[in-house]
């Protein structure tokens, strides 16, 4: 499956990936609308949080709005979503996000555009065997 793979050690906290993500999907630079979250751990260390496509959210969705596409990416069909946020609360990695401008949650679809902007290669897009859960 296609998935974003992160390496915290390479991250310099420039937040470019967050900006790219929100701009691509919501047409504005607003980190609160990104599906990647970069958090400072102090001492110039950073935590990178993004969906690992584990798919556990699929089982808790009451409307079948979540499913895997052919590339193994977990996609949200917004027209089916009722905004219940079950997926947000039950995400094992806490990488499903909410913004009050939208009733549907914000989720990474492994488009990979952020990886092109990352100056250090801290975030890359890879194709992993199905079922393998990273980080």
């Amino acid at each position: 499956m296609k998935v974003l793979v992160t390496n915290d050690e390479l991250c310099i906290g420039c937040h470019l990936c967050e900006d790219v993500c929100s701009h691509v999907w919501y047409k504005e630079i607003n980190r609160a609308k990104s599906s990647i979250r970069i958090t400072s751990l102090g001492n110039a260390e950073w935590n990178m949080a993004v969906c690992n496509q584990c798919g556990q959210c699929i089982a808790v969705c009451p409307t079948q709005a979540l499913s895997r596409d052919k590339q193994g990416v977990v996609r949200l069909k917004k027209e089916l979503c009722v905004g219940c946020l079950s997926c947000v609360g039950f995400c094992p990695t806490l990488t499903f996000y909410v913004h009050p401008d939208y009733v549907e949650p914000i989720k990474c679809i492994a488009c990979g555009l952020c990886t092109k902007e990352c100056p250090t290669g801290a975030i890359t897009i890879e194709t992993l065997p199905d079922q393998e859960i990273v980080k």
Partner: protein
Amino acid sequence: MSSFEISKERIEALKAGHRVLAEFRYEPQPVEKGYAGRTLYVNVGTHTIATKPVDERMKRTFIGGRGFDLWLLWNAVSSDTRWDSPENEIVIASGPIGGTTQYPGTGKSIAVTLSPLTGVPIDSNVGGYFGPLLKFAGFDALEVQGIADEEVIVFIDGNQGLVQILTAPEESVNSHLLAEEMVALFGQTPQEKQGISSVSAGVGAEHTLIGCLNFSFYDPRRQLTRLKQAGRGGLGTVLRKKRVKALVVKYVGVKGDSNHPADLQPIQQVGARMHREIYERDPIMFTMRLDGTNHLTKIMNDYDILPVHNFRYGSHPEAEKIYSPHFQKYFRYDAPDGCWYGCTLACAKFAAGLELRSGPYKGQVVTVDGPEYETVAGIGANCGIWSAHDVLEANFYCDAYGIDTISFGTALAFVMECYEEGILNKEITGGLELKFGNGDAMLEALHQMGRGEGFGLIVGQGIRRMKQIFVERYGADPQFLQDIGMEAKGLEYSEYVTKESLAQQGGYGLANKGPQHDEAWLIFMDAVNNQIPTFEDKAEALHYFPMWRTWFGLNGLCKLPWNDVEPADNRVRYKGIEAAKVPEHVQNYVELFRAITGRDDVRSGDDLIRMSEGVYNFQRLFNLKMGQGTRQHDAIPYRSVGPVTDVEYESRAERYDQQLRELVGIDPTGMSTAEKRLALRRYREEQYEKLIDAVYKRRGWNENGIPTLEKVRELGLDFPDVVELIEKHSR
């Protein structure tokens, strides 16, 4: 998969029987801040369909849900109306928070009618999608009045703005079939089907007074309808009396902001936080997602409060046979089990692969929604039937026939004790050997309710009427039947043994609708943890908790996410009764109410309690209007207070002897069991009366249990007819 799929030919046959008796068109309009702003009135007798406006006073005084139901019913009936009068209504409502998708437990409907069992309003809350879809279709409540000349369904299409009364000669009556038929008739795609919910009963509801309503929702993964029950008080009996086969609502297009809340952000925040809490805490707390409410059976047995053999005892060596693991093998975990979108507590368990061993569907492999704790305790433990299969089979047939599992279990347990005491025998029961533990006889009594024949019909009259019949026809001792017949106000008890908790005796006896635990559950607080030792403490708890629990019913909410999961630090930050209130969750509800309705004047849990107090007092006054609602109607059977028989006394002799010594001031040495039992009884009955005095005082009622004019004015309930009613009773 269900064995009850509906063929195309069947659908055509159903359609061929439809004739439009009445039709009403309206302009669909969005819900605003949790309210549709109007209610729907349907008279199936006169074929009248109309809407009624919801004004500010109605919202402020009655909030929604049970409050709206009671207000509409109050205006529809007189003190002479009986359950089977055409004026009686079934009223169903959600509430301002109802239909919120982000927070668990927001899909409840509350159904109200004048009960065939009690003669006063019954309110019953139920999952399934009907209430929220009704609101999004444009109506805060639905009143169904009148008695139809022929079998009908009422169809509400919230997308088209259409309400119809249709003849329905061909539709099934039993709910497991009817719910599938409604989805097949009115929905094509999975999304459309998920936008349909029906309310129906069954043939058992026609033949008894303990009929329930089934509220459906469509499960798109399993491609079948699921059923949740508004069980209590004979609601299904009233629906079938009206010759209504189903009330159906269709609304496709539910979204996360369908309530058009004043402020979406706080709703998303508390919702996501609550889902996370359930994710982390439920597996280490009550395992509702795994077991549903039946996780309680073990706890109740461990604490000696599981009703066994008609509430004689609180535990049994064989109880383990109906603990959760025996049901887990039937449960399927292949789809989310919330009975409304976003309920991650997911207690609505789904049992599959049950091969029926009796009745009209014998041999078929079926699915069952449940069983709930109440069903396991009532039909299992209370009747001494230690078989998971038989409990599930009875659960399936109760739902299909439209029978309340609680009244059925409690009534049958009473019958079984009468049988074992020799009051009844095989001759009287038509061959049914109704001893404790006889699963075959239990199922046969249930099928008799379905067929409308035999002794099952007597059982289906409920305990209050059975007591009279057994005295008149079989010469039973009326005092003994009064002592062991577990009903109050005419309603059968739900499934907790209250002998050692005075506060919970009041929780049941003082409940407006009759002895149902949704008003107060104080056993642990009172009897196990001794946190409310004085009468004043108990009275305070019997003020706060009934008001708080009433609030869920005003808003279209389920109570379970309030205290069947708790924040990790709840019992660190708070102690005793404060911890039992789960303050963080109370604050969640304050935030939800404010964010949806935009009412900034609502700031604390106290503000929520005040909302309930108005409706609670109004319901008490409604009982008064119907000729009850006074102290004598708060009396309870002695079986719920203490040991009726010597064997019961002996089963807890050490505890009771100690109480005689320490509380009553009698040395039991040398006394016979009967003497000791009577001495304890005098003491305990006196305690109950003192409790009632304290609670009435706390609630602002006079010594006869009637709200004072002062209280009524304070609560804004001083409508002319309310004032007149109170004045009439104070003369």
